[in-house]
């Protein structure tokens, strides 16, 4: 008799959490989506009164949108790759080796992050200017690399430290060189954390605006930079919404991909000690 009310009571926290999440996350996202496909949406109507792809067509027919998308994807891929190449070995050194000034150096990465970003960018921009890097793709890659250092070092350091050294010793023991051991044992063991760091780096670079704007302008324009200029020029909600959805797609795909890797790894990890 009392089973049903009690179950409802037990479900109450879950239900209210779900409601809250829906309110704060789903509703704004839904609004953006609706706006992206709305041609006319006037108060007090709850949903757009006229649907269509007019703004999509307008956006997709613009060469600068496509150029910016290409720039953004190329930038994110290159930055993530370079960041991994530089940071992963460095993170391994931090995790495994003892050297003087180690903790000070680690902390310095945190310090760059604590610094007000814009001030740092201005300082870097003035250096880049004298080096002729302002307005170049290479310049934007460099500034984004600075941005990714913290994430790509701190997360993998923790992951590497958590790996039992015996696993690496066992690999050396059966004849693997230090490099081979790192590639075949250490990296895969740290896989989920490194995957997460790579993904956050990719998405972070894709969305980063301030540095890309300061260093890249006026020749190199990424998607977020383009979005700002479009909105600045003419405040049409739909333009922002369409660009948001476009920006959202690659990162959502990346996240799905990561989830797949992570959950497969988590299953193997859960089963495998």
């Amino acid at each position: 008799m009392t089973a049903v009310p009690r179950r409802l009571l037990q479900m109450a926290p879950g239900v209210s959490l779900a409601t809250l999440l829906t309110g704060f996350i789903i509703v704004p996202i839904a609004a953006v989506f609706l706006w992206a496909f709305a041609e006319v949406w006037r108060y007090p109507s709850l949903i757009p009164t006229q649907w269509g792809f007019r703004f999509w067509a307008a956006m997709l027919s613009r060469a600068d949108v496509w150029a910016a998308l290409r720039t953004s994807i190329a930038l994110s891929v290159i930055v993530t790759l370079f960041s991994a190449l530089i940071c992963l070995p460095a993170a391994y050194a931090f995790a495994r080796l003892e050297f003087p000034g180690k903790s000070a150096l680690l902390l310095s990465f945190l310090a760059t992050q604590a610094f007000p970003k814009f001030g740092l960018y201005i300082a870097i921009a003035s250096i880049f200017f004298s080096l002729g890097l302002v307005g170049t793709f290479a310049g934007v890659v460099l500034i984004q690399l600075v941005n990714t250092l913290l994430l790509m070092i701190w997360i993998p350091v923790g992951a590497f430290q958590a790996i039992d050294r015996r696993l690496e010793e066992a690999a050396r023991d059966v004849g693997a060189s230090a490099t081979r051991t790192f590639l075949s044992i250490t990296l895969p063991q740290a896989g989920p954390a490194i995957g997460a760091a790579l993904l956050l780096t990719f998405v972070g670079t894709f969305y980063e605006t301030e540095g890309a704007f300061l260093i890249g302008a006026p020749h190199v324009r990424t998607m977020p930079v383009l979005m700002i200029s479009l909105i600045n020029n003419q405040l049409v909600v739909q333009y922002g919404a369409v660009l948001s959805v476009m920006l959202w797609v690659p990162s959502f795909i990346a996240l799905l991909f990561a989830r797949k890797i992570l959950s497969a790894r988590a299953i193997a990890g859960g089963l495998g000690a």
Partner: protein
Amino acid sequence: MSELVIDRLSKHFSGTRAVADVEVAIDDGELVCLLGPSGCGKSTVLRMIAGFERPTSGRILIDGEDVVALPPDRRPTGMVFQSHALWSHMTVFQNVAFGLKLRRLSRAAIREKVAGVLDLVGLTGFEARYPGQLSGGQQQRVAIARCVVLEPKILLMDEPFSALDAHLRVRLREEVRAIQRRLGLTTIFVTHDQEEALTLADRVVVMRSGTVEQIGSPSAIYAEPATRFVAGFIGTMNIIERQVTGGLAKLGDTRIAVDGPDGIYGFALRPEDLSLGGAWSGEVQRVLDLGAFRMLDVTVSSETIKVQVDKSVRILVGDEIGLDIHEVAAFDGEGRARPARVHGTIESGVRLHA
């Protein structure tokens, strides 16, 4: 055909001495156990042989060649770790095949060797499993297979079974012994379990705080401990301290002749070297039935000692009994063994027999 010579090997960790002047020579195909309490430097010796620790001084010769300068991947040694150290992201097959792949064997050869070694350790059919899907004993079998498949000149095992339950430990011990014999692997087996060392080893190296106390066959280590430490560490031993004057000491009514200077000696008596019927009398405090025999705790001369009696002997707690000493070992103030023998009882001057 591999011999291992450890020559005055020492290791200091930032000033503290973990291993000091260890010297052992191990013959081809021999199984030697490093035995000693936790922290006495067994693992450090093994890790220096494998190449994970650099010796502070000393040499490690494998078939006459000093390997100290070689990195672990260039040494002909194979190690089985206590924590099995299997790679959890690889299947059983991949774990075992990893070293073979590094040696650039053909796929067919790798498959054949892996199948062979998995058969040897009784894990045929488990190739596709991940280590986390195996029991503790199976994991350790894979770790052994991963090592043995590479046919190392020297097999190193660091307490490989200490994380397993007693039953499994005994079984795996026997399996390892059989595999080691079959393949003729020169092996060093580290353990803190004296029973394991005595049942497994051709020779036992007893270690204490970084140094070697005694090297010998299990029976020699058991019957003729070279130091008081070895006597106390191997098997059950009663150790009673007595003053030796003029080459004689008294244990109750029994006189012990000692070949050494006067002083305080430790007298070591195995429970099975004592029997009922003597004049050294005491009260039974406890009777433990151990199946094949009974172990008594007896208070004699205000000390409690253990006495092993046949299971047919009827004895109850509180009984007064007399003990006869058959064998005794004596250790001087430094703990070194000194020749000693039962000299007779005080009243008769003649040894009584039970």
